[in-house]
């Protein structure tokens, strides 16, 4: 493998790993802040216990998110120095803003929140919880604005072969970024909701009510997941229409449409030659006209095909392959949507049972809800695989190819060392963090009046 391929693997592995913790932190921090607000308003002790319990899981996730986040910022320069030189005038700005506006807030107020129990006034302490939740979301906004510029470059002009920033507002309020942000925040709420449902269901099935913590939490999470999943279908739909305009190749690959046509059907299952771009399909089961309707709003709308776009780009950008790996785009897109459907089913069914007061008797639902917690993670991973691999061969759409973005001064051996190093380290940390997360989740909140792990904890963290 070349150093470029290794660097791509490294970016993929470290980014997907980092993004396990991002949606947990954003979603669960918000959920925890909400629980604390309920406690603050009502003074009911089970909301305090819920705050403490879910807060602990936020901390574990936050610690790993921060630890792996530093790598994210450093590796643009380390593995992608030509990319950094090319986009520096634009891409660095949202990154620096993320640090100044969000990282400082979340890290400082997290310290205050963890160690401030009983030291800060309850109102100020509650404000800290919301500051953390808000800052994690804000941080997502800036990094998505940076990523969206790679998907759909705006607010620049080319000077000496490099883009130069001309309009920061265009970059920060890029419509691609706004859609991506809403999409990501809903995904984070879904992640938190599915985790809360799974952990609560696990305890409820064992008859461990923990003084109402779990029934209160699951009653909150079920409608949250149902509504968020439903909203996600709409947001995803409009995001898809936008992407069809901005990156038609990505959507054409996602739907395995090779020749431009009107009234394209939505493919449910397709096979083709085992190649990056098979240029056609062997087998295709589809729902007629549905794709045109979804992507353009009209049943007979025109969908451009991979082959036609490839020819069009070849004429515009010079000879080369302009299609991503079609099978990856096709299946990652389907996996993401399949998971969303699954999450909607869990949320809606559970909500319906809960409203009828039959949740505790739905043993099978309570059991199935536990493995269903994997769905949001598969959805966000495949979503990012689709977004990033679907943009290939470009790293900045229409401006810079991935093959021109690497670090010339870094040798293949060096990338291999860091790739193996990070992968091993992340693997070990995943095993340890996963065990701690599960142990904490299984243990549940403490008994009423009892100390939490006597001699263990003065504050949440240590």
């Amino acid at each position, binding site marked *: 493998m070349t150093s470029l391929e290794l660097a791509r693997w490294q970016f993929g592995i470290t980014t997907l790993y980092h993004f396990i913790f991002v949606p947990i932190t954003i979603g669960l921090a918000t959920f925890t802040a909400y629980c604390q607000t309920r406690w603050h308003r009502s003074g009911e002790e089970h909301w305090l216990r819920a705050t403490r319990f879910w807060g602990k899981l936020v901390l574990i996730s936050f610690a790993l998110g921060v630890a792996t986040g530093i790598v994210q*910022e450093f590796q*643009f320069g380390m593995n992608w120095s030509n990319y950094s030189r090319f986009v520096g005038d634009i891409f660095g700005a949202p990154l620096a803003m993320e640090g*100044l506006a969000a990282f400082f807030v979340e890290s400082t107020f997290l310290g205050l929140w963890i160690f401030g129990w*009983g030291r800060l006034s309850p109102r100020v302490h509650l404000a800290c919880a919301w500051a953390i939740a808000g800052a994690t979301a804000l941080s997502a906004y800036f990094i998505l604005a940076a990523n969206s510029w790679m998907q759909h470059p705006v607010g620049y002009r080319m000077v000496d072969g490099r883009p130069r920033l001309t309009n920061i507002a265009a970059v920060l309020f890029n419509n691609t970024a706004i859609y991506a942000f809403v999409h990501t925040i809903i995904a984070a709420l879904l992640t938190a909701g599915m985790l809360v449902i799974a952990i609560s269901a696990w305890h409820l099935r064992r008859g461990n009510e923990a003084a109402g913590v779990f029934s209160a939490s699951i009653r909150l999470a079920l409608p949250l997941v149902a509504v968020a999943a439903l909203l996600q279908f709409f947001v995803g739909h409009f995001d898809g229409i936008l992407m069809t305009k901005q990156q038609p190749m990505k959507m054409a690959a996602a739907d395995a449409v090779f020749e431009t046509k009107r009234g394209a059907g939505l493919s449910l299952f397709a096979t083709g030659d085992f190649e990056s771009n098979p240029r056609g399909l062997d087998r295709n089961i589809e729902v007629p006209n549905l794709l045109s309707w979804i992507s353009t709003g009209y049943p007979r709308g025109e969908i451009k095909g991979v082959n036609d776009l490839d020819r069009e780009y070849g004429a515009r950008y010079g000879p080369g392959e302009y299609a991503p790996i079609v099978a990856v785009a096709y299946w990652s897109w389907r996996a993401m949507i399949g998971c969303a459907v699954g999450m909607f089913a869990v949320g809606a069914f559970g909500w319906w049972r809960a409203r009828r007061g039959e949740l505790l008797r739905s043993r099978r639902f309570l059991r199935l809800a536990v493995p269903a917690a994997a769905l949001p993670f598969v959805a966000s991973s495949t979503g990012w695989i689709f977004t990033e691999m679907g943009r290939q061969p470009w790293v900045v759409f229409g401006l810079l190819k991935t093959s021109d973005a690497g*670090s010339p001064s870094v040798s293949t051996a060096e990338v291999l060392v860091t790739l193996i190093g990070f992968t091993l380290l992340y693997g070990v940390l995943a095993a340890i963090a996963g065990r701690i997360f599960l142990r904490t989740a299984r243990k549940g909140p403490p008994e009423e009046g009892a100390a*939490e792990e006597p001699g263990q904890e003065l504050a949440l963290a240590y």
Partner: protein
Amino acid sequence: MRDYTTLQAVWFVLISVLWLGYFVLEGFDFGVGMLLRAVGRDRAERRAVLHSIGPVWDGNEVWLLVAGGATFAAFPQWYATLFSGFYLALFLILVALILRNVAFEFWGKGDSERWRSGWEWALIGGSFLPALLWGVAWADIVHGVPIDARGEYTGTLLTLLRPYALLGGLATLALFLAHGAIFLSLRTTGALERRARAIAARVAPPAALLVIGFLAWTLADSDGAKAASVVCAVGASALAVAAAALASRRPAHAFGATCGAIVLLFTALFSELFPHAMISSTNAAFSLTLAEAASSSYTLTVMTVVAGLLVPVVLLYQGWTYWVFRHRISAEGFGEARSPIDLLSRSREEGAGGRSPGR
């Protein structure tokens, strides 16, 4: 003739300030981390040591992230050359920081002695390595490293580890260790305070010697050292000596002195570097100037507005955090630790403040 714009100079200063903030704040975190087992002898004491930086270390580390982000935004060519050039050194720093970050969180999550001592060593190593390597890296940046005409680094990891740079690394390592020991002696009481003070008194004199040696070499090495660098170097040396003299008697003054020594040490380095971003040891003509490394003036203006609005706010709430957690910590409060829920209900019964024992 000036070959840089005011905005570029402003951003060089701002990025320097971010690094200074990082080293002053994370410097004592590194020191405390390295001293975890030396000052804390049992579990309660070690928890107390961790608590002395618990609420703040994460916020302190963000100074590094922002310094990195600001370099990317303001001087992308600098960011690209430096980060791809110092590749394996940065990898080691990243691994160390990751281990240290999770060690804070995981330490208290297991019951076995082996589990805890494992994470204690991760914390010690994760504090030691960056404290050493940041000094090495900045010594190399100022001294110059092999960079070719295209601005690409042509050396290896070993190129960075030459005697001068290693001396720089030892100087920051010792200085951060003394800085952390003095910080601990200010933040704790009882046996912890005594031990931290004794260590500070032992570590601060060699730290002062290393700082003086490193700065003398830096100035001797430079062709025509700037007046500002000389003044800062002399100031840093004087403060390092002052810290050594005051460490056992006046910890508050000694802490001020180590803060000042760290600031002036790095200011001397930054002032030597200016107006360059990277020095090429291959050929002086290949050195990267700030003007060559910088973003457009539009980007710099945008970032100046953002930084001008946000940096004061950040300083305000980070300062407030230190105020909230200003109380000294003793080990007694950590043996019979109770959960916040108990503390809250107890304070409700007593109707007084919710103070935890020993703070």
